[in-house]
């Protein structure tokens, strides 16, 4: 049994009093990939964005319930959101590298969090880029603009950027949906690599992707968590009719 990396209890999210996620409780194992699937607008992305309190920045969003990392409920008003977010990395659908050099994209976070030593920063940059399988492609152009990279490279850079601040959890919101199949394959490979160290929670619209890379899958429908089980079981023997309808492509 894997250790629990993050655990949501009775999470309820609304936008301007319209419910988007209703009373969802989910445990995420560390060193595993958990996929969140469901049709558009089912609340899976909203749920994901609640886990690092990113919904705080959206006017009208309200998140109630508990989110536990270890013995800390991070959805409490007392939580220091800024230091919390250091523990939870995030990767978006569209690659969003900073408008800075490749090196700065990675070094910016660690430097802000107190690492001033140039040599140490160099090491972090190299290590993060290696982990993100981007080192060989970028080592000779670290000080050129990150915006000149291809979409797939940018997305791996964003993953490298988030692991550079040493999180224990990484949230991914459809990280490959804007990429071509080759880049997608690379990202998936990378995710499989990264799960040896991190608790990865990934939102995806791609059933095959969920089946390929995740250990566990949660199916959301209209703000409700319909079913949550091991990915094998979800794809071969789902317990609920809605789940099997969705997975087999009968709707959504």
């Amino acid at each position, binding site marked *: 049994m894997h250790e629990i990396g993050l655990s949501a209890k009775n999470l309820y999210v609304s936008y301007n009093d319209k419910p988007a996620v209703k009373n969802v409780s989910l445990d995420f194992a560390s060193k595993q990939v958990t996929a969140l699937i469901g049709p558009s607008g089912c609340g899976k992305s909203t749920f994901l964005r609640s886990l690092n309190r990113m919904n705080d920045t959206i006017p009208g969003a309200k998140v109630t319930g508990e989110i536990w990392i270890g013995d800390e409920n991070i959805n409490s008003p007392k939580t220091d959101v*800024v230091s919390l977010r250091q523990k939870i990395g995030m990767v978006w659908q569209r690659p969003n590298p900073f408008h800075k050099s490749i090196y700065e994209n990675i070094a910016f976070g660690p430097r*802000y969090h107190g690492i001033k030593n140039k040599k140490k920063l160099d090491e972090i940059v190299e290590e993060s880029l290696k982990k993100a399988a981007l080192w060989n492609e970028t080592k000779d152009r670290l000080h050129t*603009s990150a915006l000149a990279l291809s979409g797939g490279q940018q997305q791996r850079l964003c993953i490298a950027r988030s692991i550079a601040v040493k999180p224990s959890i990484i949230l991914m919101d459809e990280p490959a949906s804007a990429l071509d199949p080759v880049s997608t394959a690379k990202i998936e490979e990378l995710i499989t690599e990264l799960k040896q160290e991190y608790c990865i929670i990934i939102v995806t619209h791609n059933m095959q992707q969920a089946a390929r890379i995740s250990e566990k899958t949660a199916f959301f429908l209209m703000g409700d968590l319909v079913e949550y089980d091991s990915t094998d079981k979800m794809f071969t023997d789902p317990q609920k009719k809605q789940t099997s309808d969705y997975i087999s492509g009968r709707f959504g």
Partner: protein
Amino acid sequence: MMKAKTVDKIATAVIISVAAFIVILLAGLLGYILVRGLGHVSVDFLTSPPETISEGGGIGPQLFNSLFLLFLTMIITVPLGLGAGIYMSEYAKPGRVTDFIRLLVEVLSSFPSIVVGLFGLLVLVNMFGLGFSLFAGALALTVFNLPLMVRITEQGLKSVPREQKEAGLALGLSKWKTITSIMMPIAIPVILTGTILASGRVFGEAAALLFTAGMSSPRLDFSDWNPLSPFSPLNPFRPAETLAVHIWKINSEGLAPDAAEIAAGASAVLIITVLLFNLVARWLGRLIHRKFTASK
């Protein structure tokens, strides 16, 4: 019924002729001012002081006053405008109060400039005892320029993609650090371009300055750079006639025999300066964008 293609052709023709009309009108205006004025512009004209009744006066002090007043105005408005713009874009909670503030800012920017000038005369010049001075003029110009700066900053920040901001926050950066280090570099070309364009308005303003910065300058001593001395060009509390005010004054009450030529020359200089602002704004915006994004 007409065919869709015919309608399309007519619409295109109408739009092109309207555009051409505007371009010709503007080009004609600009050409008229430049042709009339440029012949009179020389280094001597740009540097020598004006003459009251004899020929051959220049616009040196006026040009200096205009630039110095612009500088003073920007020193006041840029920090305030940036601060207020960042607040409006990133900190203000949407709601009635914010909408009200925004409305006030809009109203402020559309004040008739003569009203601002008279307000400046009553409050700044008389009540606060600033007298006709560059400082009073700069404060009056702040009334127009501040709303522009707030709006420019706000728009600049709003144009930054949301994911950029979220990426900063998700790394555990504070809100302030995210704004200054992640969002500002992306917004700055927009803000800078807007600021320089706004400077053009300040540079050409006359009505608000008639009764604040005044319609005369002391005999400036360009060798005296002590800002406290009354004849120093740098003294912000001395009266200062700007270029635009000078044009208005010699056109309406100029006694020099070459008053018309001087007004034409000064107008050409004014227009060319504003044109330069626009060109510099574009060039600088592109340069900074390239520098910050390290792209080619």
